[in-house]
């Protein structure tokens, strides 16, 4: 079937603010869907409340509604736009739920709207455990074995039949699964079963075999209107069943299944997808496989694009969301070309000739007291993906990408390892499990021992043991003695120069990474760059999507164009997320418009900027110094852009300066200078701009001394961090002492800053662009919460709502003064506190900020592009006036979204350390609006002192 022409206008539902489990990957798929539909000539109407998304950019859809994701909003939009189809599968669970609710109201039918991309009636089956179970029974898909018990004795017998403990008990007909759970040992068995029997109104419990520790797999499928199904990618979880797949380290393709086992899963997945009603689109199926047997059970099926499908797209090069959208509007797979090769068909199953590792990124440091054990509830806030020609290489790259201070999987002198801690950390699943596996091998553990404790498939353990064997071999050598072959083997296994330097320092004198780099270059050991092409090189591919490897042929051809390298922001985390991806995409486009070839480097699969057709060239690599330098030495760009990649990119700045690599925009010394509180304060003093009193310290005594001088309350924080990490307000000496001790532990390298805390001050956040002559104010945002609540966690309003003209004039004056005196070229963000009509400067950030996308959406100006073009030499006076004029009517409000629901053991408390995962934009006509009134009422409630 070709394209449907009975529909013309399609509504896409976005996923809203970033929350744990539903993040930037939906912007990636949503953007692809928008582009895919526009390509086909459909009119696209979009609803999403998340301003930091590319999909809500003007070019993406014909009508964009930045509105709360509620059924009311949708009804309003439908009344106005009269779409004739809705595509709910790009908006995560949010999109499906909204569509489902409206389906129950018969809303779609009444309005003659086709639901495309999913069978909305069948979604319920996939979400209701019993209905899912019944359906699987009906189509002969294996499930966990289980039996109903009416008594404790019966429960015991059934447990025996199922092979003993652990087992899962599920009391019948209790609300929300009350009284259910896993039983690990004899002690709890009796108690839990009896409790379940009591709780159940019919006094029955279902005794189900436990599949904890089984191998976990995910398959990503596409189905067309003709019921042709292809499997785009298979992902194997290294962490076995029991850890949410979003929290697991995963690998693609599957590594430990024989073909016969894999085909069983494939057959079952296709059967499952075809069983959930008539529809065309994408879906994800999860299975558990019993180790050492052919037994498997189906876990779940999700009929929509997901985090996994975004990962699968980046992992294979196959654009799942784009193709799923085309299928949803009627195309059959065989009518579409493979967009990567252009010559072969989209109807095939990608074959990859490299190994993908995905590693989750956590932010437990933000939530003191949180239970760090990984469970079936997702806790990760972001992820990295790495590509290697073998598993060790991909694994080391993943650890270089995570930005947890590591140079790879261990071997970097970060900690002393001791047997007891390692064993304790391995007994339960934690985020650093594979690092502890490495430590255990270092301590001489065997594959069997570790497999026994962790249930991790021995193949992965064997690989890590091999990595440790390379470490051990290297530790006995010196920089002079190490052979080319040995060094080559290390580089092929993904070890960084820093790791190798550390290994070589073990028996010889200290060696640094630059010495290793020099040595390997002298031996001719440089990485080559290979193409991700969906087909293992079977067909020629033009896609400029590369990864590095140490071997024969380099497939990346360097052009003669002038080039700029743009560094991405690495894994999403609190304080640094989708907003930077948004700015990266705009930086790419702006650079291209300025006549540059734009080269993107990033390792975050949940991004639009790493889509294969955004930048002129994409290097899917860790934003890690050695890897970035390798790319720069090969591509020889005119310079780099660091200001759109958050702290990830900025922290490499010094290294670029040392290497003599040009940084576009504000000179790096100035960026650095803004972080140097002493120098920056002197600078403000010279300009006669007020700032809160402060001092710096490196010890507990020092900080107490400073506080005594400036008076309590004080704000204390480590320098050079983003999102107010480790920042606290102390009202007295004992508190300050405690906070200082914590910072000394978590940030031993940093100085810390102690500021006088301005109580009940109003905080302002001002973004602007300066070109050396002229200042463009992107927006002055007034926070509803008082200064002291992190700007990322505050409710921000533009324009300001309670400030005098004098204050605003002062703010503009200071902003311009700082910009011109600092020598800003491009972004400048300054945060102010206003108290008793006096304006204080809190900090200045000469880089892109989290608020840039919000301002761009609020004022409908291309704020990121303006700044990047200025960085590359454009002048504000040459921009069309239209581009610099705000189109905002009334007020726009930025509302933060928090993850406290996921961390019930952590109390909700806002302060100087950022905790929100995302934000929404809301346009208010007046201050009677709930979105203004609510936060205003609660504004002082949470401030932690």
């Amino acid at each position, binding site marked *: 079937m070709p394209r449907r022409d009975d529909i013309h206008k399609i509504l896409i539902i976005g996923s809203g603010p970033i929350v744990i489990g539903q993040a930037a990957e939906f912007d990636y798929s949503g953007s692809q869907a928008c582009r895919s539909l526009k390509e086909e000539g459909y009119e696209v109407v979009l609803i999403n409340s998340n301003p930091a998304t590319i999909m809500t950019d003007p070019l993406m859809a014909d009508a964009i509604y930045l509105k709360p994701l509620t059924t009311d909003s949708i009804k309003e939009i439908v009344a106005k736009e009269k779409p004739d189809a809705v595509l709910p599968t790009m908006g995560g669970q949010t999109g499906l739920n909204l569509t489902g609710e409206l389906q129950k109201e018969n809303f779609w039918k009444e309005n003659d709207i086709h639901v495309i991309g999913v069978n909305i009636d069948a979604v319920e089956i996939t979400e209701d455990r019993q209905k899912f179970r019944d359906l699987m029974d009906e189509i002969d898909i294996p499930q966990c074995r289980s039996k109903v018990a009416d008594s404790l004795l019966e429960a015991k017998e059934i447990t025996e039949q199922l092979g003993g403990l652990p087992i899962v008990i599920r009391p019948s007909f209790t609300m929300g699964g009350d009284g259910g759970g896993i039983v690990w040992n004899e002690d709890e068995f009796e108690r839990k079963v009896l409790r379940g029997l009591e709780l159940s109104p019919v006094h029955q419990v279902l005794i189900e075999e436990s599949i904890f520790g089984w191998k976990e797999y995910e398959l990503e499928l596409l189905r067309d209107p003709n019921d042709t199904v292809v499997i785009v990618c298979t992902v194997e979880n290294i962490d076995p069943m029991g850890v949410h797949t979003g929290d697991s380290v995963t690998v693609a393709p599957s590594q*430990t299944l*024989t073909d016969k086992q894999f085909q069983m899963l494939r057959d079952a997945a296709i059967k499952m997808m075809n069983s959930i009603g008539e529809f065309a689109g994408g879906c994800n199926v999860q299975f558990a496989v019993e180790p050492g047997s052919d037994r498997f059970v189906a876990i779940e099926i999700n009929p929509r694009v997901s985090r996994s499908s975004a990962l699968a797209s980046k992992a294979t090069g196959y654009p799942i969301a784009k193709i799923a959208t085309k299928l949803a509007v009627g195309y059959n797979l*065989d009518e579409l070309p493979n967009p990567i090769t252009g010559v072969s068909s989209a109807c095939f199953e990608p*074959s990859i*000739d490299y190994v993908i590792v995905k590693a989750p990124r956590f932010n437990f440091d933000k939530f003191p007291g949180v239970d760090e054990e990984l469970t079936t509830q997702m806790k990760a806030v972001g992820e990295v993906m790495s590509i290697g020609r073998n*598993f060790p290489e991909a694994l080391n790259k993943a650890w270089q990408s995570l930005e947890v201070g590591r140079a790879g999987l261990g071997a970097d002198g970060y900690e002393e390892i001791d047997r007891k801690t390692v064993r304790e950390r391995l007994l339960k699943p934690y985020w650093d499990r594979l690092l502890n596996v490495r430590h255990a091998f270092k301590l001489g553990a065997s594959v069997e021992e570790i497999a026994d404790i962790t249930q991790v498939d021995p*193949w992965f353990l064997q690989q890590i043991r091999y990595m440790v064997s*390379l470490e051990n071999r290297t530790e006995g050598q010196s920089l002079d003695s190490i052979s080319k072959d040995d060094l080559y083997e290390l580089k092929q296994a993904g070890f960084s120069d820093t790791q190798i330097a550390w290994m070589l320092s073990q028996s010889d004198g200290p060696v640094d990474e630059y010495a290793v780099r020099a040595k390997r270059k002298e031996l001719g050991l440089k990485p080559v760059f290979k193409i991700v092409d969906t087909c293992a090189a*079977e067909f020629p591919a033009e896609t400029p999507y590369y990864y590095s490897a140490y071997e024969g042929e380099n497939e990346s051809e360097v052009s003669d164009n002038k080039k700029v390298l743009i560094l991405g922001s690495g894994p999403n985390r609190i304080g640094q997320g989708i907003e930077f991806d948004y700015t990266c995409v705009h930086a790419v486009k702006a650079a291209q418009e300025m006549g540059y070839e734009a080269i993107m480097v990033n390792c975050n699969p949940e991004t639009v900027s790493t889509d294969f057709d955004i930048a002129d060239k994409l290097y899917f690599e860790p934003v890690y110094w050695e890897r970035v330098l390798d790319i720069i030495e090969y591509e020889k760009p005119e310079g780099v852009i660091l200001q759109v990649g958050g702290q990830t990119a900025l922290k490499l700045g010094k290294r670029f300066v040392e290497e003599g690599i040009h940084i576009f925009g504000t000179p790096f010394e100035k960026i650095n200078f803004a972080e140097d509180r002493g120098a920056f304060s002197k600078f403000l003093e010279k300009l006669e701009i007020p700032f809160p009193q402060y001092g710096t310290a490196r010890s507990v005594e020092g900080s107490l001394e400073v506080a005594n001088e400036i008076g309590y309350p004080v704000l204390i924080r480590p320098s050079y961090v983003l999102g107010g990490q480790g920042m606290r307000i102390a009202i007295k000496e004992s508190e300050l002492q405690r906070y200082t001790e914590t910072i000394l532990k978590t940030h031993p390298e940093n100085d810390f800053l102690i500021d006088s805390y301005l109580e009940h001050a109003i905080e302002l956040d001002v973004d602007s662009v300066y070109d050396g002559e002229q200042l463009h104010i992107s927006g002055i945002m007034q926070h509803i919460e008082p200064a002291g609540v992190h700007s990322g966690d505050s409710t921000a309003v533009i324009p300001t709502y309670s400030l005098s003209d004098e204050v605003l004039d002062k703010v503009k004056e200071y902003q311009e003064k700082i910009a011109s005196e600092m020598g800003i070229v491009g972004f400048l963000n300054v945060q102010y506190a206003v108290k008793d009509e006096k304006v204080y400067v809190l900090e200045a950030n000469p880089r892109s900020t989290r608020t840039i996308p919000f301002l761009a959406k609020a004022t409908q100006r291309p704020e990121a592009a303006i700044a990047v073009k200025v960085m590359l030499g454009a002048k504000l006076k040459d921009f069309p006036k239209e581009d610099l004029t705000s189109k905002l009517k009334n007020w726009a409000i930025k509302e933060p979204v928090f993850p406290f629901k996921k961390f019930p053991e952590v109390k909700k408390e806002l302060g100087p350390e950022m905790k929100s995962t995302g934000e929404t934009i809301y346009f208010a006509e007046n201050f009677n609006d709930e979105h203004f009134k609510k936060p205003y009422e609660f504004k002082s409630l949470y401030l932690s002192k």
Partner: protein
Amino acid sequence: MSLYPRKKAILALSDGTVVHGQAIGHDGITGGELCFNTSMTGYQEIFTDPSYYGQLMMMTYPHIGNYGTMPRDDEARKVMVAGVICRAFSHEFSNPMADRSLQEYLEDHEITGISGVDTRMLVRHIREKGVMNAVISSTELDEDKLVQMAKDWDQMEGLELASKVTRSEPQTIHSDGPYKVAAFDYGIKQNIINNLNSRGCTLRIFPAKGDYLDEIKDWNPDGFFFSNGPGDPNATSEYALDVVKYAKETQKPLFGICLGHQLMALADGIPVKKMYVGHRGANQPVKNLLTGKVEITTQNHGFAVDEDALDESKVEITHINLNDQTIEGLRFKSFPGFSVQYHPEASPGPHDSSYLFDQFLDMIKEHKGVEA
């Protein structure tokens, strides 16, 4: 000390390309046509597929050997490929059901291989330069000598290989079912036998060469099956066409796979030509022109039916490859028979096409006058 042995080995191509790596499997020298397979699982099935007889098999997926080997994954009684090439050989494996590591398996079958080479570069090389012969050696390490050996190695074109992998004696494989199929073994895969057998066919499997016509007539089969196999179909046809022609004349159902498909075409006067690169992998999209559905198929062929020489009054094209539009399936008009270029028995690969075995059975049932 490295955890794994790092004995040197060399892969030399007939065009002078030489790459170095580590020896795997049996120490020695081996050669053949260098081909690649893009399947990400199923190395053991591939290495034992008789269609690959005499070829050097390069796996594009880097890690090979991860789950060891086990008897149930053998497609024949021995390893058929002449040599193995991969990027990251797994010396250790993880699979409680396996009986040996791939290293032990290759040693037991005296197969020489090389690991640690840039397989992707070699795939791109063949893709651009066309297939060529190569030599793997872990004993002789003189590059020039090895290149010369590769040049002197027998060309696949014109090579008759089915007789090297076929059974020496006819063999009967019984089933509970009522149907009798005469199968011709040019290198038949175990999973084809399983597929027919499990559908109630008793098989009488005949060697590729030799005069069994009388025996076949005596046995009076309900249908004929022509198997996959290695080598140039034109060379095999020199002795194999008589039996195909006989089968056609019986007007009983005929089914051919791969080489069998090519032989059925040749017997109908349709020429078969050598392809530039060939199709080898488990992800090839084939469209069934009769139903409009697409199946993901396992393929392994370097020759194909010449579409330009097709006479549509004699045959109907039933399947095409979506990547390059080459012919993948034919239905013959002068007799009840059909054939496919790809492998519906999979192993390794997707099971999307197993319906073809049902289709063959339906034809047999119809022919026998049994209700389908």
